């Protein structure tokens, strides 16, 4: 006992000694320096910053009355054809004149031209694909909006396909994504605020919201959390997600990641905020609730009766996915009296030759299933076929004939496997799959009692979770009866008169009352 206390004390002490690491990040020391009126000096400092990188092009030429000028851009990021046609050729036609910066601006036939003041601005513009024109004896440069780079064409998002409804999905290019959003929500009230995150990657991150619907506090909080990020690089939306979550250690996702512009637009219309990251074909939506993870866009593109039925099917299979094998293990090792006699006899019969306890059997099979799924997901398609053949053997008749697992167990594993794919969002599906294993252990050790204990832990965790201040289980806990219209069932369009209160309280009504269609409605207009 003494030694344990001693050990605990020592552990406590060592825990207190926290190494504090100060991240200095990377900041270009010359970034804040103003451009000088000496072109050569400017070029020299740019050259030294880029360190003679081969893809940075310094194009020196002269304009007007032999004023020296230089165009700086990065190969492959800017449209060279357009530069030739709209920048270089008009400038070189106007000879024998002293050109001011305004004159140059008039001459260049490009719509998007910006003045840049500091070295830092110049660097940002160049790396964003905009060529920067520097002119001798001018303290400012001009950035010409002619970016062009290779991008993927717009395709149907494979992870969120629907039968009815739009087929377009986000791509890796932020500009295209915001444009897709803008095409859906044309109001000027759709605001998109962007910033660069990551000291090396300088990734462009855009926050989208609809002014007048979204809570200003929420938007500020989101921008604040994004600005707090100090890191060297942001490569995917997960990098952002994990840095702005409310409960980073929780297994449950607190932001919704979607590839569909229509889903993002629908959330924006409910007062949520979306974060879009350059280089990732998905947007993050916040705040979200547990139930929004079980809503598929398809629910809204089908008739509401079908949508409601499918939603309930999903809730049912959520339960099976989490508890299926654990209930089986608990009942068959502890509570045999709960099984109907005829079923128990069948089970007893099929378990007769099985050498392992039900718990071992369940963990073995579930692990095998997860392994098969993972192998199948990572392999190239040609080899994937082999995996599915092996899978059919492992989880199938062969395993039963080999006497390693019983037939009911194979059924349970197969049903659970299907159930875990019922979640319309992959992130929540994998969370449930992971939680299944501790639940199985608890069921195997303590039976139904353990199952209830595990459920209590999960429930109390879910109840403490918040996504950007919104309780994770709302509107069920805290209960808001009116808002169950999108949880217990998928209310028809003409009944969805109000926005969810926690995100849309600034503009509670989304449509006028009495939208229910019917014969009299049409007659009224006559």
């Amino acid at each position: 006992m003494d030694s344990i206390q001693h050990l605990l004390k020592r552990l406590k002490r060592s825990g207190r000694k926290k190494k504090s690491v100060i991240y200095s990040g990377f900041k270009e020391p010359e970034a804040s320096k103003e451009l000088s009126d000496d072109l050569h000096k400017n070029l020299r400092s740019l050259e030294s910053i880029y360190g003679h990188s081969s893809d940075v092009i310094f194009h020196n030429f002269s304009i007007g009355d032999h004023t020296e000028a230089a165009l700086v851009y990065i190969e492959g990021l800017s449209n060279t054809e357009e530069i030739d046609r709209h920048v270089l050729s008009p400038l070189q036609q106007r000879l024998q004149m002293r050109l001011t910066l305004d004159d140059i601006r008039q001459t260049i036939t490009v719509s998007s031209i910006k003045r840049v003041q500091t070295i830092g601005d110049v660097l940002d513009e160049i790396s964003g694909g905009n060529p920067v024109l520097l002119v001798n004896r001018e303290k400012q440069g001009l950035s010409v909006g002619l970016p062009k780079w290779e991008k993927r064409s717009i395709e149907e998002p494979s992870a969120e396909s629907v039968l009815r409804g739009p087929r377009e999905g986000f791509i890796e290019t932020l500009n295209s994504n915001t444009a897709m959003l803008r095409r859906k929500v044309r109001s000027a009230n759709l605001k998109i605020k962007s910033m660069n995150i990551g000291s090396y990657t300088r990734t462009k991150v855009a926050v989208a919201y609809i002014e007048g619907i979204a809570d200003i506090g929420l938007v500020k909080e989101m921008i604040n959390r994004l600005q707090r990020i100090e890191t060297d690089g942001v490569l995917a939306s997960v990098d952002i997600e994990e840095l702005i979550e409310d409960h980073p250690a929780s297994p449950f996702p607190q932001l919704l990641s979607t590839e569909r512009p229509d889903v993002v637009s629908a959330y924006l219309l409910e007062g949520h905020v979306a974060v879009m990251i350059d280089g990732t074909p998905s947007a993050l939506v916040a705040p979200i609730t547990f139930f929004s993870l079980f809503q598929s866009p398809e629910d809204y593109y089908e008739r509401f009766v079908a949508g409601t039925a499918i939603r309930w099917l999903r809730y049912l299979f959520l339960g099976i996915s989490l508890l299926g094998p654990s209930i089986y293990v608990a009942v068959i090792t502890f509570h045999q009296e709960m099984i109907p006699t005829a079923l128990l006899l069948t089970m007893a019969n099929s378990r007769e030759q099985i050498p392992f306890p039900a718990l071992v059997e369940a963990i073995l099979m579930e692990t095998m299933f997860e392994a098969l799924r993972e192998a199948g997901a990572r392999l190239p398609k040609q080899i994937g076929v082999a995996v599915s053949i092996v899978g059919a053997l492992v989880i199938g008749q062969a395993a039963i004939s080999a006497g390693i697992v019983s037939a009911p167990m194979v059924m349970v594993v197969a049903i659970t496997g299907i159930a875990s794919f019922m979640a319309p969002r992959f992130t929540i599906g994998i969370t449930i799959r992971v939680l299944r294993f501790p639940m199985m252990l608890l069921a195997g050790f303590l039976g139904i009692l353990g199952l209830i204990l595990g459920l209590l832990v999960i429930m109390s965790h879910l109840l403490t979770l918040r996504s950007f201040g919104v309780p994770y289980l709302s509107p069920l806990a805290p209960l808001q009866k009116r808002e169950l219209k999108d949880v217990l069932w998928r209310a028809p369009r003409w009944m969805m008169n109000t926005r969810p209160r926690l995100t849309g309280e600034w503009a509670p009504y989304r449509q006028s009352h009495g939208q229910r269609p019917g014969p009299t409605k049409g007659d009224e207009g006559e």
Partner: protein
Amino acid sequence: MVMKRGTVLFILLLIQTFLLSGCWDRTEVNDLAIIMGAGVDLTEDHQLELSVNLFLPSPSGQQITKQSGSEGGSTGLGVSIVRTVRGATLAEAVSKLQQYVSRELFWGQDEVYIFGKSLAEAGIYEPMEFLLRHPDVSERANVFVSKKTAKEVLEVSPPVEDTVSEALREIARGRTGMDITLTELAQMMAGKSKAAVIPMIDVKEKQSTNETFPYILGTAIIKNGKMVGSMDENVTRGAMWIRNEVEKATITVSRKNERGAVSVLLFKSQTEVDAHIDGDRWSITVRIHSVDDIVENNTDQDFSIPDHIEELQTDLEGDINERVYKALDLAQKQLNADIFYFADAFYRKYPQEWKKHSDRWDDIFPNVEVNVQTKLSIRKPGLTRKSFFKLTK
């Protein structure tokens, strides 16, 4: 990473509680001997003889196809066998039984308990005590008294169901006779009247086909834990009318001045028992309300005529009354066993008087005046007025 070491240690200790204790009360299904039915008999030397019908999964794990007419005991999934042990008490017999069976006895699925007639006559207090105390025994199990020994009944392999236990359970659930569970029996035995009923079974043997199957013979009447008499099927129906337990019934009456008979099928029935105490006169009014449909008419009468319906109703009421009075006569006058919950009816209405006279209930009960008021109404005479086939004559 971010977690403090104390938290890590705490979690580790928490995991130890699971790993070190292990699955101490875990039992796999293939370590269980599942008891399907149990029977208790009294031997000549006054010992209890416990017989259990055990289910053994087929050793290969494969399904055995049941062959018709084959030697009994094989079900679709495995073999059902009967083991018999003797002991001074049921608990002793059970612990002895465990010595004869390699697997752990599992009582949770046992849905049939059979008491042999000899035991029932000697008293079923002792086995009931065990069955109600044992944590594994399902109180929803059905109870029977068998005319033959319980062992003989359990050894029967009925042609329709897989095991005899299954067959007995289905017969009881069929509700043509009494359907008494262990809980109900205990409640009756410990109730105000100390009288109980248990369905009585027998085994029918067909010599020609070598088929044996159990059937309900009547009802055993238990008074103070001992079987004091029995009712045949007809009288049982009468008792069931009073006990408000009739759910399925076909009543057939022959008509005066007519050839042939009429059968009606019970649609619903409700019985109310009302108690009165008037000085020393204790009386009971039994009101039976029954709604029926005509299912067979072999007479020449046309039941679309209201007069005929009324006559028929009176006849049917008379038939029910006759059975009810038979049951009353047997229970009240011959056996003095209050199997109709009359004691509870008095207690509910006159709790003060009941307290004073509860000791004398055995003296009061035979002299309770019972008034039977039967009201039967034919709900649907049917569109077929007379019998089709008699019209042609």
